[in-house]
């Protein structure tokens, strides 16, 4: 590792502890391709902790997450951080793959959750105008109970656990994919308002299309179908199908588990509904299941299924059209990489350049919430080329057995400190 003081790299963007450095010279043990590179090694760390930047860094140490790197100097950072690992190079995977996926999943989950609950509630608002503002629910009470608990719980769980937009190797290949997370693009106040508008539109469709279709109508044998129970069943089936299709549009990574959750929830809805509206349940729990016969008598009407079909398509097609137009007119990096992913093969995994390092000089450092060892790092003692046989006392803490040839142990509280420690 060259110890020559490199020219001061200029920090182009600094946000929440992350630095983009313009390449001014090739650093020997890390090959940086392109104009921007995310470089975290001793040099960048030292310059980052320059006096004028030190305050900024340490102020932003109340950052979104704290990352601790465990090493020979101890586990203190590990204990006070959100994520910890043993080697600096794992930071790349943490940020570019897991951090990015986590942000994506969180935002999709939030948007979908707000959408489904707002739509559900707005439909009741529109019905209020037609029921004398008496707070009569449009849906069956059992549906209201089971909607968030059972019918839409598992699919969204599957989305939040498994969803990926691009695979991990492509994420390394294109670190620019990390930008939307920094710019708060996926969920912000604007995105929330857009979600509300979409809910409003969906709720209008989900109420008024069944309303108009059932207004003053009858079944194909002349009997009643515009009764409260059939209308409730129609409205709730439309709602659930629209929500399932919307979730399917949001899911970019369909594993077998996701398929099972989505189709299983829909099948579960129909199974539970038919069971609850059956003769048996009514005869056992009469007052709890008054909707007897409704499913059988209304779901065999072509009228009802045509209404459901129309409602679902009318809610979903604008979303599809809008997303397609955005991909055509203003493709984001995400869209481009995903399109590229389809056409080209997976890039080969980059072999990490293994350079023999002497670990005494390259140690792990902790970014934690407290003031830490900034001064010691800026003193650059660790960059010296002097081969070190005996470790200088860099740290004043004595609770780690440095002087001994012992690897780290977690010390339990009752245990006596092992052997004698050098002060």
């Amino acid at each position: 590792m060259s110890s020559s003081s490199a020219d001061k790299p200029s920090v182009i963007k600094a946000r929440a502890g992350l630095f983009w450095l313009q390449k001014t010279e090739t650093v020997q043990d890390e090959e940086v391709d392109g104009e921007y590179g995310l470089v975290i090694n001793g040099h960048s760390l030292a310059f980052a902790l320059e006096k004028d930047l030190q305050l900024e860094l340490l102020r932003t140490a109340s950052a979104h997450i704290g990352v601790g790197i465990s090493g020979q100097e101890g586990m203190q950072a590990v204990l006070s951080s959100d994520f910890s690992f043993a080697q600096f190079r794992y930071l790349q995977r943490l940020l570019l793959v897991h951090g990015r996926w986590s942000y994506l999943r969180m935002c999709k989950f939030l948007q979908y959750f707000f959408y489904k609950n707002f739509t559900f509630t707005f439909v009741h608002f529109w019905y209020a105008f037609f029921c004398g503002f008496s707070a009569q629910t449009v849906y069956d009470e059992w549906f209201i109970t089971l909607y968030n608990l059972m019918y839409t719980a598992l699919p969204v769980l599957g989305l939040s656990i498994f969803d990926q937009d691009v695979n991990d190797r492509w994420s390394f290949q294109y670190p620019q994919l990390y930008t939307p997370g920094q710019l708060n693009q996926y969920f912000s106040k604007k995105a929330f308002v857009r979600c509300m508008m979409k809910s409003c539109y969906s709720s209008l469709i989900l109420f008024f299309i069944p309303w108009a279709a059932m207004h003053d109508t009858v079944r194909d044998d002349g009997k009643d179908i515009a009764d409260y129970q059939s209308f409730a069943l129609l409205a709730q089936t439309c709602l659930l199908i629209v929500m399932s299709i919307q979730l399917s549009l949001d899911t970019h990574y369909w594993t077998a588990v996701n398929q099972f959750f989505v189709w299983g929830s829909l099948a579960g809805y129909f199974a539970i509904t038919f069971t609850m509206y059956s003769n048996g349940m009514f005869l056992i729990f009469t007052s709890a299941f008054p909707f007897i016969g409704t499913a059988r008598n209304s779901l065999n009407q072509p009228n009802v299924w045509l209404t459901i079909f129309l409602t679902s398509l009318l809610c979903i097609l604008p979303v599809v059209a809008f997303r397609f137009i955005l991909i055509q007119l203003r493709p984001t990096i995400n869209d481009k990489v995903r399109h590229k992913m389809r056409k080209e093969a997976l890039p080969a995994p980059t072999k990490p350049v293994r350079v023999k390092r002497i670990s005494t000089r390259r140690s792990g450092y902790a970014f934690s919430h407290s003031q830490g060892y900034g001064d010691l790092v800026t003193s650059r003692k660790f960059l010296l080329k002097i081969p070190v046989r005996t470790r200088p006392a860099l740290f004043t803490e004595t609770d780690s057995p440095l002087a001994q040839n012992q690897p780290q142990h977690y010390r339990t509280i009752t245990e006596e400190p092992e052997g004698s420690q050098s002060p």
Partner: protein
Amino acid sequence: MMASSYNAKEEDGHHSGASSHGAAGAVKSKKPDNTAFKQQRLPAWQPILTAGTVLPAFFVIGLIFIPIGIGLFVSSNNIKEFQIDYTGVDISSPCYSCAKNFSWNSTTPCVCYVPFTLNQSFESNVFMYYGLSNFYQNHRRYVKSRDDSQLNGDRSALTNPSKECEPYRTSDGLPIAPCGAIANSLFNDTLELYHIDSNGTSNPIPLAKKGIAWWTDKHVKFRNPGGNNNLSVAFHGTNKPVNWRNPVYELDPSDPENNGFINEDFIVWMRTAALPTFRKLYRIIQKKPNTTPTLPSGKYLLTITYNYPVLSFDGRKRMILSTISWMGGKNPFLGIAYITVGSICFFLGVVLLIIHHKYDTRNNSADIPN
């Protein structure tokens, strides 16, 4: 040295005692398994919105919806329907005097006669409905005001109805059967239809009163207490609802299968409507066995025994005669909606095709900026 003995590959948290102390080899590694599930490498289908999927989808949907819409619209247009409002609001309407002079205590029923003409003849089964407007059968307190156990024939609920029926739960100290506001407001106008043929004689048209309620309602949900034998004994100890003229076991004394709780008019009324304007099946006019139309075109007379007051809440009553098709009653909305949505889809497909053509050639050359 110590440094070199520190295995850089070990994960955080791994008790490195295992590497230098050979004896402590029983410590389990905390490294996650290298399985597809835990390393998030499960095989998956990754669809994206390309022009190859979206554009054909829009065109196909447009092409499917338009014929369906046309089919629905034509079907709806072929249904013949006739409505006549007989509330008696205007002074010129036949039922004006009945409406105006309505009183709860009158013993003689007020009868009014409404003549009308059918321009087209009605074939096949003709269904006669009564329709109400501005009647909120979907008001929450109204919807709750019933006792399904009592209506299912449960003896304990017969004598002790549910609290939800208040204030229509007891009357004169006796429990009301059937209790609740829904039952109390049972529609009790009687409608009769006469055909006036060319000679001027009025022939009554036979109206079937069975088969108007859902099968599950009639046979499972509503049961008389103690079976269908002597109903006046079964209902002993209960009172009739406040606004009824006769008790429930006198709804249809001539037919024990249609008396008591299982009276079909009563069942049809108890199935509360979802919206404030609704129609309920009243009678069915069966089709004639030969090819003569069920209701030939010509003059008719509707005889109404006006028992049901609606003017106090600005409601309206009407009588509807309608034929039926595979899509139900006359409702052009679905047909028009399908045609509209189909055309919009098709048009949108064309627009997207133009956008795709114009911008996609630009996209193919655009590379991902570094």
